[in-house]
Structure formats: structure tokens, C-alpha cells
């Protein structure tokens, strides 16, 4: 008799998702699906609005990565208006991006994914959470809190507002950074840098070695990767060219406003989240984990894989060690966590570097803009992957078309494949316990998915639907939320 295990909610990721694991008559995994059960409809809502409002509106898409949306939107506005921000405007945007990144990566490692590793995947569920960490290691908990507070304080000083930011505007940045403010922020950034160094050392000494076997086994799939690099091939998070890498390590670079020549989005009738794939590879789309077609991944591991190097010295050292140990491209899904910590270090280093740049306190932070009919694409690397905002306007600067591809959407197919692999590896002959189920969730959490803002409203009519399939793939039940 077919048995179905439903894990809902997938705790500690943003937004709602349902994992359905379908077992066959022998109690082994027959099929898995990660379903998103939330709708947004944001693009439709934006039509007819002045395009310059978008950087402020998009921060309401989701409370998790408002800065990434804010900056991608500001960049799309620059393109729509045909302007280039002055150097100080660009650098202030970049600085805010790095600060927001450090907050997010610290949060993810210690609060969201960390509990699995710090407490152990087989630990009782009641202690495998952030409070468990705080109780097991109170000093560490205090340092995590302080460093996240520092991030929020820095954003408040630089931009005036850390949540729902407003300072990135078409043509630049609305608030110059004074020398006094810079002098206030710099020691904070240096303290965060010290903490990121500690975090990397702590993880390499106490966390990663202990779970290397798990890293090598859980949710492993073979895919391509995509991320942003500078002209010299160094990893970049704010502005650069996109690099799309095949599973064999070969790659092609392209300007992000040509994304639709390289990426297509597929719709599956069981998910409201689209499934982007690499159409430029010319092989179509398949999520068969043994024979995937067109599948690429984004987020930290992808960025580390596509990059030739890191632009800062400490991150470069870690990058070289990582690459020597895991190769290029590294495919082990749980290495997202390791890659995330290399990025954390890079962000902190770059933050300090920018604050030492005399140009960052220039008062010339923006240029004027004039409405026109145009298309503009903005792209940044959000913590969860390449974030693309694509706007079209009429002659009055009113939005006529919007397309957003968010980081988690790129990873939709890989998440489903990794969950399938993880479930097959840890559920045998109908035997499982809480630890095994959590390992399935771990495969999802490695991607740090933010499913709430990744969900698109596909046809404007349908409600969310979850289908339950039997062993033959027939729909047994349909649930609507």
C-alpha cells in the first residue's frame, strides 16, 4: 500500500512550503515534490505605477531581503532612465548591499541552518533551534546578536532606514555619507569583520569536519551554476556580468539585460513557482536527478563555483582552500553553507575597504532623471541568488510590463531534485524517524530558500493547489489553501 509522508511546514525557511514524499509498496521513496503554497501577484500590482516608485515598493515584497530588491529595482530604474550613478552613489549602494549580506549570512548560518550542525541533525527537535544554540553556547549567542545589531545600526547610519529602505533612487543614492558618519560606521564594520573571521574558523574547526560525511551524502545532484562576476572573473554581488556554467565547468558570460536569451522559465501544473532553466544549452528541461537537463543553481555555492577568484585577500585564501578540497564546480549541496561563509568574509572585507575609500563621502551621489519609454533590467546577487528586475515604461515613465526572477526561483528545480535525492538516501523500506525527516529538510535549507517572495501568480485566477499522487501518478486528493 502506498504511504505518504508529509512534512509541513518546512520550519526555519522563509515562507510556506510543503514537502510531499510518496513511498511505494516497499516503503521506498517513489516521488517527492516541494510545493509552494503562497501567491503574490506583485508584478500585476505594479502596472501603471511610476517606475521611480518601484525601489520603494519592492521592499514590501518580502521582509527577508529588502535591500536586494531595493537595489535591483534602483538599477533597473537607472537603465530605464538611461543614467549612470556617480561613483559615490554606486559605492554607497554597494556598501549597503554588503552590510545587508553580512546580516543575512550570519542569520542563516547561526539561526536557520546552524542549529542542524551546531546541535546535530539527530538532536531532539525541541533543542535543534536558535534557542537551543543560545542555551548550549550563550557566549556565541551574544556575539551573534551583537553583530547583527551592528549591521542594523550601520544601515541606519548609512541609509537612514535598515528595514524597508528608501535611499537608493533612480540615478544614485539620495543620502551622502558624511565623514563623521563614516568614522562612526568604520569601527563597527571592523568588528563585524573580526566576527566573520571567527565564524569561519569556528565552522572549519568545530562544525564542518564533524558533518563532512553528511555533506558528502545529502541531497547531492549534478547541475550547472550561475552567478555574477567582475570583468576579471572575481566574484561580484552588486554589479557585473552573469556567468552560466555547465556541469562540466565550461561557461559563457553575458550582460544581465540579455538574461532572456539564456534562461527560459517553465511552468509545472503542480507548483506556482516557475522553473527557470538554461535554454542556451539547447537540451530542454528535466528534473530527473540522474539525467538532468538545463538545470543550474544559484546562491552562494554557485557564485563560488563560477568565480575565478575573490577580490579580497582573506576570502581569496578561503576560496583557494575550498576549491582545492572540492574542485570546480563543487556539487555537494551542503557546501552552500561553507560557500556562504566565504562570502560572509568577502562582504565584511569589502565593507571595510569601501569605508576606507575617500570617494565614499563625496556629496555627488545622484544624477537627475527624465521619464521616457524604455526597458531597463537591473540585476544584483541577492543572498539567495541572482535577482533580476525587468521593467518597461511608456513615455510618461509609467510601468507597462514587469518581470522579476528572484534567487529562490532559479533554485526551484534543484531544490526539488535535492529533496528527492535526500529522501531516497535516508528513507529505506519505510523506516524513518525525526532525524531522517530533518535531513530532508536540511537539503532544502542549504539553498536558504525564501519561497514567499519567489512565488509568482501565474494566470491571475487559480488558487493554490496541492495534489496528492498515488504510486501510478494519479491524483488522489487535491488540497486548496
Amino acid at each position, binding site marked *: 500500500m502506498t504511504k505518504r509522508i508529509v512534512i509541513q511546514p518546512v*520550519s*526555519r525557511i522563509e515562507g*510556506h512550503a510543503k514537502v510531499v514524499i510518496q513511498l511505494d509498496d516497499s516503503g521506498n521513496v517513489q516521488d517527492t515534490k516541494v510545493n509552494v503554497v503562497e501567491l503574490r*501577484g506583485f508584478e*500585476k500590482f505594479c502596472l501603471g505605477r511610476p517606475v521611480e516608485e518601484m525601489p520603494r515598493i519592492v521592499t*514590501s515584497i518580502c521582509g*527577508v531581503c529588502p535591500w536586494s530588491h531595493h537595489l535591483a529595482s534602483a538599477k533597473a530604474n537607472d537603465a530605464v532612465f538611461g543614467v549612470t550613478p556617480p561613483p559615490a552613489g554606486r559605492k554607497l549602494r554597494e556598501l549597503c548591499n554588503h552590510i545587508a549580506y553580512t546580516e543575512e549570512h550570519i542569520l542563516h548560518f547561526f539561526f536557520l541552518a546552524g542549529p542542524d550542525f551546531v546541535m546535530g541533525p539527530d538532536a531532539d527537535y525541541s533543542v535543534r533551534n*536558535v534557542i537551543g544554540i*543560545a542555551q548550549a553556547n550563550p557566549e556565541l549567542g551574544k556575539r551573534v546578536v551583537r553583530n547583527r545589531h551592528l549591521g542594523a545600526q550601520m544601515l541606519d547610519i548609512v541609509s537612514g532606514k535598515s528595514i524597508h529602505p528608501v535611499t537608493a533612487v533612480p540615478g544614485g543614492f539620495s543620502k551622502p555619507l558624511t565623514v563623521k558618519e563614516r568614522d562612526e560606521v568604520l569601527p563597527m564594520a571592523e568588528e563585524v569583520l573580526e566576527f566573520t573571521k571567527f565564524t569561519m574558523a569556528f565552522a572549519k574547526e568545530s562544525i564542518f569536519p564533524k558533518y563532512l560525511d553528511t555533506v558528502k551524502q545529502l541531497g547531492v545532484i549534478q547541475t550547472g551554476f550561475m552567478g555574477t562576476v567582475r570583468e576579471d572573473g572575481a566574484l561580484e554581488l552588486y554589479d557585473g556580468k552573469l556567468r552560466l556554467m555547465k556541469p562540466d565547468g565550461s561557461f559563457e558570460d553575458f550582460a544581465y539585460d540579455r538574461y532572456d536569451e539564456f534562461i527560459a522559465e517553465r511552468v509545472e501544473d503542480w507548483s506556482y513557482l516557475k522553473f527557470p532553466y538554461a535554454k542556451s544549452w539547447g537540451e530542454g528541461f528535466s528534473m530527473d536527478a540522474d539525467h538532468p537537463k538545463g538545470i543550474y543553481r544559484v546562491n552562494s555555492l554557485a557564485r563560488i563555483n563560477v568565480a575565478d577568484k575573490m577580490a579580497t585577500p582573506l576570502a581569496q585564501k578561503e576560496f583557494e582552500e575550498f576549491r582545492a578540497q572540492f574542485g570546480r564546480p563543487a556539487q555537494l549541496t551542503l557546501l552552500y553553507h561553507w560557500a556562504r561563509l566565504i562570502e560572509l568574509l568577502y562582504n565584511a572585507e569589502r565593507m571595510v575597504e569601501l569605508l576606507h575609500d575617500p570617494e565614499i563621502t563625496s556629496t555627488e551621489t545622484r544624477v537627475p532623471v527624465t521619464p521616457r519609454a524604455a526597458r531597463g533590467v537591473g540585476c544584483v546577487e541577492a543572498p539567495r541568488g541572482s535577482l533580476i528586475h525587468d521593467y518597461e515604461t511608456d513615455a510618461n515613465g509609467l510601468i507597462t510590463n514587469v518581470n522579476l526572477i528572484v534567487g529562490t526561483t532559479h533554485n526551484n528545480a534543484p531544490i526539488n531534485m535535492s529533496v528527492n535525492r535526500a529522501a531516497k538516501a535516508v528513507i529505506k523500506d519505510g523506516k524513518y524517524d525525526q532525524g531522517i525527516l530533518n535531513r530532508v529538510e536540511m537539503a532544502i535549507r542549504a539553498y536558504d530558500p525564501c519561497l514567499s517572495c519567489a512565488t509568482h501568480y501565474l494566470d491571475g485566477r487559480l488558487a493554490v493547489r496541492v495534489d496528492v499522487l498515488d504510486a501510478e501518478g494519479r491524483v488522489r486528493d487535491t488540497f486548496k489553501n
Partner: protein
Amino acid sequence: MADYGNADVLVVGCGNVLFGDDGFGPAVAERLEQRRDLPSRACVVNAGLGVRDVLFTIAVSERRPKLIVVVDAVDEGRRPGEVMVRDVEEIPEREIGDLSMHLLPTSHLLRELHDACGVAMKVVSVQTHYLPDQVSPGLSDAVKGAVPLACEKILDLLRSRP
């Protein structure tokens, strides 16, 4: 008004203002922030979608509020606009995972903050009338009318604390 890291009582308005009555929590927070009779030891946070950060930080902080009041919108099939004030353990299990669109990690924290950290938790919720499945800002009349009542109930809660 106290900073939330130092407050004895914390009122957190949660929800997404882009999704109809899900904007109830932020609306209550905005109104409370204007009240001059708010006790000085209390702090109101219009957390919107950023509630997770606030509660995570409190969870691992040494100094925590004695009471946290979470304000949110729920759909329980009651009369639209009905305001409920409950202890966190009175919230049905389904709603713990379903309080609001962005509360998935947060809703677990509500119980964990209460159970593991000894923080008293109250949940002030409103029965929604209009929860769209796509972006559509603005409260329904029934829920808009419930905002002042919710504020009074919260102030009563704060005044009744020693």
C-alpha cells in the same frame, strides 16, 4: 518610548500591508505609536514583514521583555473584525503555523519564547474579512473598524501589568 531591546513590554505588529487585512498588525502598531498614554516601559514595533528579526534577536538576547504582545490577522471563521486576546497556548496548533504569511519561523518562536525563555506572550488577533491571494493593499471596513478596539485592548493589557 523604550527601545525594543530594553523594553519591559513589547508590542509587535506583524503582517503584510500589501495583502488586504493582513495589514492589521502594522495598522494597530501605527495607531499605538501615536498614543501619548503608552506606558514608558513599553515599546511598539511596526515589524511588518521584519518580525522574524525582532523575535530571533529577543530569543537569543540576555535581556528580554517580560511580556510580548503579538498583533496579527487570522482566519478562524468568526465574525469579521472580531478582536481576540489570547495566551499563546490558547492558539490552535494550526494557527501556530499559519498566523500570517511570513510568520512560519516566527510562529514557532512564539511558543519557544514562551516555553523556553519564560516570556509572557499575548496574541491579539482580528478575524479577517478580506485576505486576497494576490497583492491588494487596504483593510476591509470591518477590520479597519477593529483597529481602535484592538489598541484599547492592548493598552488595557499594558495597564494591568504591575
